């Protein structure tokens, strides 16, 4: 005669499944780290997840052109006077952002931050 009946295994399986489910739902999807969000005036206006060159517009007015390549992003052209956003170069770290103050645009990875025990969390500049 077996020490465990079939209902014991059912109960065990359900409990183990629930435990793994609880752990998994709290781990962010890696795919979301690859999406790039563009906020204009504090509102998320664009989400990109494919390579390409995209125009960023607000109320039909073209503000800037960005390039996305292999999950990195940079500003190619901007209507702002100082072009500091263009000079920012590639955005590579999910804990950083490209900012255009005159156009009030913030470009960052969709799922941020990505804080770990190691790796840079912020930049002083």
């Amino acid at each position, binding site marked *: 005669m077996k020490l465990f009946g079939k209902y014991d295994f059912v109960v065990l399986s359900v409990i183990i499944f629930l435990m793994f489910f609880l*752990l998994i739902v709290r781990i962010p999807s890696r795919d979301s780290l690859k999406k790039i969000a563009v906020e204009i005036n*504090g509102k998320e206006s664009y989400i990109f997840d494919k390579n390409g060159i995209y125009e960023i517009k607000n109320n039909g007015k073209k503000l800037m052109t960005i390039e996305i390549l292999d999950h990195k992003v940079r500003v190619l052209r901007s209507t702002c006077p100082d072009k500091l956003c263009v000079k920012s170069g590639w955005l*590579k770290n999910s804990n950083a952002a490209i900012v255009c103050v*005159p156009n009030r645009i913030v470009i960052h990875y969709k799922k941020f931050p990505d804080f770990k025990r190691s790796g840079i969390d912020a930049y002083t*500049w």
Partner: protein
Amino acid sequence: MREKYSKEFINQRKKSWYFTYGLIAILIVIVFVVSFRRPPDYVVKDEISLGTHVRVVVSSKYSGKILDSIFREFRRIDSKFNPYNPNSKIYRINHSNGNWVEVDDEILFILKKSLYYADLTGGAFDFTLGRLIKLWGFDSENSEKRIPSSDEINETLKHIGYDKVEIDGNKVRLHDGVWLDFGAIVKGYAIDRAVQIAKKIDPKATGFVDAGGDIGIIGPKFGGADWIVGIRNPRGESQQDTIGVIYLKEGAVATSGDYERFFISNGKRYYHIFNPKTGYPAKGVISATVVANSCLDADALATAIFNLGIEYSLTYIPRYGGQAFIVDENQKIHKTKGFLYFEQVH
């Protein structure tokens, strides 16, 4: 009636049940502790304020309230201290035609702190450069930047000098038409206020406030680890190219650089940190990072280093309560001895 199972078998099965379900109970407790008892995830909010990018990262049961309160405070400080906004209080003081103006405790605090640093650094930190900043076009990101003529600069220098600011009780008077510009200190002050607000709402909150690369720590990462802050390479191709890393569990760090607001004319770089004696951008330093207890102090000292010079800064910045990491115009790095402390994990 015949007994179906022996007593020995039933006892064995009971023991197995106790063991198995006991194990499961322990696992459930562990999973719940890991999943729910750990601090809440970090929440991030970005906004543009004080003419720069502000990012707040916070982990708290009251993250939403903390973020709303902090950004409300940033907007308030921005509208109050922007000297080029006709609705701001500083604009009104600057245009008071040499008359006494009554100020509130907050403006008085910033004024006295600015005077303290101006005195301490022998004028290397000067908060009366408003007219000069406007002349060069650095008063707004939308202003046209240009190299003024030497006549224009000499004329403007007559309206500069922290010794032309007079305080009597809660009143202030500006002589010789000087314009206040607290740009080199108010960002640090806003960060200190943000950290205070977060800690007041939730003393257990952790995270940091980052305004244009000046950072104030709310609390250690995950409740006990250092925040890892990269120091931007002033001549790097990307904002994320670094020349150093520091580890902070508390306190603040501020950096001033010739790459924040600048324009290039005939191959020469002109930027927003001025020598109050010449009226031209300061020379010799291209980036200065200061770690201090408060962001206001770090911000003021990082700006002062541009006019203090490297040797003087390495000696005196620690006496003023900061530790410095300086990059000179040849891209050579200079550090105060105590800066090493922040380059190590604790």
